[in-house]
């Protein structure tokens, strides 16, 4: 049962939380609206896209790039899980 942490919801959420917290210099609860709280600017959102793609080997394309998918750690985790699942149907 040694699952790669990069493929479990918990592992992904932890990694994203660590990245965002470090960049904004504050604790970030998984449900916090990052845009509304002003923690994430449009510029940082662009960085997040590129970071998620590199860290989790996914491609985020077209309508998946909508703001709602980057609104919270939980939303980003769900996006990565969905794209991972689609990309590696047989699992890690």
């Amino acid at each position, binding site marked *: 049962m040694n699952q790669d942490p990069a493929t479990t919801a918990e592992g992904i959420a932890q990694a994203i939380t660590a990245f965002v917290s470090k*960049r*904004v210099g504050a604790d970030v609860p998984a449900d916090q609206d990052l845009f509304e709280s002003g923690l994430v600017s*449009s510029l940082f959102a662009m960085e997040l896209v590129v970071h998620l793609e590199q860290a989790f080997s996914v491609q985020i394309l077209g309508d998946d790039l909508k703001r709602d998918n980057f609104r919270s750690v939980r939303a980003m985790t769900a996006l990565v899980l969905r794209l991972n699942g689609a990309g590696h149907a047989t699992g890690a």
Partner: protein
Amino acid sequence: MAEQTSIVKCLVWDLDNTLWQGTLLEDGDVRLPDSVRELVTELDSRGILQSVASKNDHDQAWKRLEALGVAEYFVLPRIGWGPKSDSVREIADELGFALGTVAFVDDQPAERAEVRFHLPEVRCYDAGRLPELAALPEFSPVTVTVDSRRRRQMYQAGFRRKSAEAEFQGPSDDFLRSLELQMRIGRATEDELSRVEELTLRTSQMNATGVHYSSSDLRALLADPRHEVLVTTLTDRFGPHGAVGLQLLEKHAGVWNLKLLATSCRVVSFGAGSVLLGWLVDQAAHAGVHLVADFRRTERNRMMEIAYRLAGFTDEPCDCRAGLPEPAQEDVQRLHLLPAPCAPPPTMKLHTVSLEGV
């Protein structure tokens, strides 16, 4: 026709018996001929950067350049005792220039040979050729724009900005605020057309359709009341960034079509693209129109798509698309947005025109 000569972007000067007459550490006194002073200011006004690679005592030589009133013209000077090929290479690296766009002038054949040996792409000139330099094609750019005339100041501001950023501790938005960024968005004037054209040529990463508009294309559009040709300039406390953005908008009843958005790569890290889009969305919301943005994927403009999508543009169908003429190129996607008022950015001050009223 001879093949096109590539333009020199930076000329690196030797000092003793090249820039000035005499050897500073031996003669004590040196003389800067008027003709050389004129050459330095002329090249500067053409947007050609200048630097120094000299074997000399750094403090004395720099003091002398200041006393002669020309120190400000030289960026990233290398004055010391190392090989000149190292100096020239470091200058090119720091500027981000290819060696083939760098030139070196020195009165000593051995120094030119040393540079040529290690850096064969660098063009080397004997100091005896200084009188003819300004007339050579490689020192004569075809277009000299408002921005090329102040290119050196923009680079110098860039160096100061970089060191300020390296020293700054804290969130990046706070750093951006500390820059006191001021963005101006205005209708392009005839004078600005050449710099605008340069933008569509140079900004392949941040060009939403990959289309190059020539200055005559744009001039025709200036005269067309349906079209808005908008130029964005950016300034901060260190100095000007020059023209950093171009928007081409065609206004129809009920919908505005953003046919081109190009921003300079230099200002991506300031979020300039998102600020421009946010402003346009706000204008459209107040005018009560939909927005349709043309996007054509190229190998290099992915950041532009991300900026559009994050701003809320989607593929969703809307009746407003039917009123638009077909796009000029193939493979153009039309992204749609129903605009809502958009708060001004927290990181910079905007000075803008109003687009309301066709």
